[in-house]
């Protein structure tokens, strides 16, 4: 059965201040890579916007209104040192969340086996009431809640291999035993959360990696911490917060993963989903700031999704 790719030119329209690494070129690099012949078999769909009720699956009503009303007609409004809004941000961010929901819909309806959403802005740093770290709405959290509310899914596992800890996702589900959050990330590094001692209600699993850790160290941590946790949880859907900034080329971190390490992790996640969730995997782009490392890693990741 097929793999769905959700992406859209609208994601190029959220512009950022000069020098900011989370930039439209990231999606141009991915689009170029996934236009190659090996990806012809992908089912491709454009983005859809999440409405405000959907955003409130993971965010406070006041926060959604704040973001809606903060969008300037011209120029930029900074929400934190990394995170600025311009005229299109509100619309584009709603399309990123809506595309994650669309991917959940298509995977859970069985029309595709799994899905990758190449969208921006990313989501995993966004908390219930706070934009930070390039993120406005927590796409993974909204997708998980959508699966539960609209599809009757009970247990959702979110696996996050972005090199930064997904503080937002962890915080949103910190007291929710129906959602498991398991993360590998460099520590110390932004945002500072993600210690092993942060365990939620037994549903949070953090596997911090020291600066300079390579693919072997990543695989060991993933095998020892993430895989057993997800196996024990027996999710009905697996969502991946797929950041590719643990790549050795990435300028924002110092881990040393290669494309084949992301391919390996993808195979492991697919096997987990096969054991518990009928193979259902929805993967959402988070970070990844070296254009070559990002494009090559996404190609390796999506290539494995297509083999499932």
């Amino acid at each position, binding site marked *: 059965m097929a793999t769905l790719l959700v992406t859209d030119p609208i994601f190029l329209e959220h512009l950022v201040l000069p*020098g*900011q*690494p989370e930039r439209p070129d990231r999606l141009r690099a991915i689009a170029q890579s996934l236009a190659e012949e090996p990806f012809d078999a992908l089912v491709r769909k454009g983005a859809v916007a999440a409405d405000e009720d959907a955003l409130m699956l993971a965010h406070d009503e006041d926060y959604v209104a704040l973001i809606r009303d903060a969008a300037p007609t011209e120029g930029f409004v900074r929400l*934190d*040192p*990394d995170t600025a809004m311009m005229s299109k941000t509100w619309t584009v961010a709603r399309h990123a969340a809506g595309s994650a929901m669309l991917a959940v819909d298509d995977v859970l309806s069985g029309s595709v086996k799994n899905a990758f959403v190449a969208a921006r802005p990313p989501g995993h*740093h966004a908390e219930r009431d706070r934009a*930070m*770290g*390039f993120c406005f709405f927590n796409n993974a959290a909204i997708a998980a809640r959508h699966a539960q509310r609209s599809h009757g899914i009970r247990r959702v596992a979110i696996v996050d291999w972005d090199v*930064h800890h997904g503080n937002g996702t962890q915080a949103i589900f910190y007291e929710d035993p129906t959602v498991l959050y398991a993360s590998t990330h460099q520590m*110390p*590094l*932004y*945002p*500072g*959360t993600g210690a092993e001692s942060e365990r939620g209600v037994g549903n949070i699993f953090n596997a911090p990696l020291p*600066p300079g850790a390579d693919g072997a160290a990543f695989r060991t941590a993933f095998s020892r911490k993430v895989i057993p946790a997800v196996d024990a949880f027996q999710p009905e859907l697996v969502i991946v917060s797929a950041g590719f900034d643990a790549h050795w080329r990435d*300028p*924002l*971190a*110092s881990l040393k993963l290669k494309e084949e390490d992301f391919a390996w992790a993808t195979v492991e996640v697919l096997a987990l989903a096969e054991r518990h969730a009928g193979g259902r995997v929805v993967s959402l782009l988070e970070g990844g700031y070296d254009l070559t490392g990002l494009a090559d890693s996404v190609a390796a990741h999506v290539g494995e999704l297509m083999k499932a």
Partner: protein
Amino acid sequence: MPDLVPVETLTFEKALAELEQIVGRLERGDVPLAESIAIYERGEALKNHCAKLLGEAEARVEKIRLNADGRATGTEPLDVP
């Protein structure tokens, strides 16, 4: 990151003070994502510089002790069975 003084030119006191400032920022979580790695690497360089200066100071102390002693007893291999 603003223009920074090269780590190797800093005195121990200045390097330690900057390191403490960095640790404080990391602990408070007020480091931007885009700068986090640069700040971490600066902290690592400061830590290594402090460790190097401490090591050199220790070596000097050792030398003084040995000179005062008149004999190199401190570096003689221990005659342990």
